[in-house]
């Protein structure tokens, strides 16, 4: 100790003593990490060890050979040509394509509906505005699965069949499906026709697909409407006023001035909604539409390969999500650049 002036009450600044290692700010975080990491690794090792042991006991050790074996079951309304002699991987692929079909059509439909409703909530017409609000509040607070079974069992399965079907020009809606006019044999335009009590048309969609689509579009539409509404609300009010003082109509203002600017806010929000729509399409199994999940479940049942099937499922959905995210990120980029 250096003698100091006793009249000075404060001790001289000492160099900070080196703290013990358990209080060293450079060491502690790494110790925490190491401990957590080790615990997680141990847990994983424990689970995997059990998995291997239990699978060995059940004679189901990981193997992918079954993918090459004939599936033995049929898939209705497969976009990919499929029959029961084709291998399991083809069945899963057919299911994936069916899922993608539902997702793509659902995305387009939900975006259209959501945008319209989102726009309607800025309408001058009070009734329309409130209706948009009611739609969003009702749909968002009812589980999607409940809505799907409602559409299927209450709406689509009570449609009339045969002659009594709902007929519009070029479109027929019956219990057996939705029939749409299109280019038929020999590239001739063909409308739906009734042959021996069964409707025929170039384009035929099953009611299962119809119920799934309706459910997905109505449900996601409500969420997208909220995203669109938020986006429009984020555009400064002055833009509206400026446009209308230039003599633009309400719709023209929205379409040409406000919506393009609001895309900046809307697109990231849409990404989330699109991904959840893709994931929600797996509820198709409840309404009898053969999507990827449905095929996977059947496959599990016929082969008993639980672990492999779930890996395929997870990989497929993660890829689908990443794909959507990548597309939306590209779009986002585009939108952001256009602003300048």
């Amino acid at each position, binding site marked *: 100790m250096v003698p100091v002036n006793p009249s000075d009450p404060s001790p001289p600044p000492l160099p900070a003593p080196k703290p013990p290692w358990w209080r060293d700010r450079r060491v502690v*975080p*790494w110790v*925490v*990490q190491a401990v*957590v*990491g080790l615990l*997680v690794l141990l847990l994983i090792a424990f*689970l995997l060890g*059990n*998995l291997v042991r*239990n*699978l060995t006991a*059940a004679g189901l050790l990981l193997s992918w050979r079954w993918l090459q074996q004939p599936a033995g079951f049929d898939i209705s309304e497969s976009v990919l040509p499929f029959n029961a002699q084709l291998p399991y991987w083809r069945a899963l692929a057919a299911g994936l394509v069916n899922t993608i079909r539902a997702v793509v059509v659902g995305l387009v439909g939900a975006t259209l509906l959501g945008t319209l409703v989102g726009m309607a909530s800025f309408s*001058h*017409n*009070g*009734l*329309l505005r409130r*209706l948009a609000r009611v739609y969003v*509040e*009702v749909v*968002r*607070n*009812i*589980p*999607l*699965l*409940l*809505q799907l*079974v*409602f559409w299927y*069992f*209450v709406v689509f*399965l009570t449609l009339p069949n045969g002659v009594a079907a709902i007929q519009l020009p070029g479109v027929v809606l019956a219990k057996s499906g939705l029939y749409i006019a299109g280019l038929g044999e020999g590239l001739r335009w063909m409308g739906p026709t009734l042959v021996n009590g069964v409707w025929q048309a170039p384009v035929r969609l099953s009611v299962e697909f119809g119920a799934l689509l309706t459910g997905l579009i109505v449900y996601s539409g409500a969420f997208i409407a909220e995203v669109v509404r938020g986006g429009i609300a984020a555009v400064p009010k002055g833009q509206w006023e400026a446009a209308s003082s230039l003599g633009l109509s309400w719709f023209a203002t929205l379409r040409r001035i406000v919506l393009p600017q609001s895309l900046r806010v809307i697109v990231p929000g849409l990404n989330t909604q699109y*991904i959840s729509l893709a*994931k*929600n399409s*797996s*509820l198709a*199994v*409840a309404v009898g539409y053969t999507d990827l*999940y449905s095929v996977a*479940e059947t496959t*599990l049942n016929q082969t008993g390969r*639980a*672990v492999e099937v*779930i890996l395929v*499922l*997870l990989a497929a*959905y*993660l890829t689908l*999500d*990443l794909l959507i995210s990548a597309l939306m990120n590209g779009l986002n980029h585009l939108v952001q650049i256009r602003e300048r």
Partner: protein
Amino acid sequence: MKPVLRRLRAELFATPADAVLSTGLIAVLSLAAFGFLRWAFTQAQWAVIRVNSTLFAVGRYPVEEQWRLWLLLWLLFAATGLSWGVLRSHPRPDRSGVLWPRNDRIAATLLVVLGLWRPAAMGLSLSIQARWWGLVALLLLVRWLAGRFGPRFGPLGLRLVALMWPVLYLVGMVLISGGLGLVAVSPSEWGGLLLTLLASSFAILLCFPIGVLLALGRRSDLPLLRWGSVLYIEFIRGAPLITLLFLGQNILGFLLPGGLAPDRIWRAAWVLTFFAAAYLAEAVRSGLAAVPRGQLEAARSLGLSYPKALQHVVLPQALRVALPAMVGQFISLLQDTTLLSLIGLLELLGTARTVMANPAFLGKNAEVYLTLAVLFWCCCAALGLGSRALERRLDPHAVPSAT
């Protein structure tokens, strides 16, 4: 009347186009409403709900043990009344301190009307009707008592109320599942609304701490924690819930030593919890992002340790910002419990499907699904309303001297 008419005109008939649109909408809406009412009162057969009301409420819960659920219901109603009254008797500085504000009067009236009319309309037996009346009366009585005498206990009352709910939850679990001298009721016998509420409340309660930890992990400076959290969150958020439930039902048995895997219901509840935690983590993360970094630095420079700074400074602010998003997650979690029906569990929707497999009620889809929809809508809307009320209560601008 004049202003009303003027407003109507401005809102509905401002321009010719608006007028056409409004007239069309009014026509379509009234047609739809008329059709629906005609169906609901003349064609619909609501007997399917009335006859199966116990099944919808509690599933196959043994009849001789159902008194335990009633007891729980009495406790819940009393606790609700108590909390309501105590909260009202501790007005925030900005509030007038009125014991029965307008909203409360409306809520109480609604409660009385519902309690008197709904059981009667369902055609429940008189003894059960009487129980519902008793429950409503108890709630209002306790609400009044607590409002009246609550202030005597000062802030202690609020703390006791906050403590009461977790205790009640544990008591409820014991009452439902048995133990401590009560006959055990196996989870496979729980069903209907009971299972829906149990699974969702369990998941909501447990996903909260896990979600907060994950959010903190994701924002941590430690790479291992950060990447671990990111991996977990993105993996869970990338997979549809049904595949995860499927994983829980079919794979979990392989992952644990034989016989250690919990019951299917608990397995599903845990899957729901871990699923919701990932989404909650994202909500909390957005809240954390809204707290300026200076807050943490200031707290640290005041000598608070990192956990203390988080607990007392950062998290309270972050959670307040994240509250709407979190409640949104809780609402979707409540809705997601319907997916349990796809793995063969008899929650509300699953019960509905077995009821409709009963030949006596074949084809009563519309009645059953509509009832469920109304039920879910009310639960979700109530959660949303509650969250908005809580938001207002926690609003720092309304309470300048929050301590």
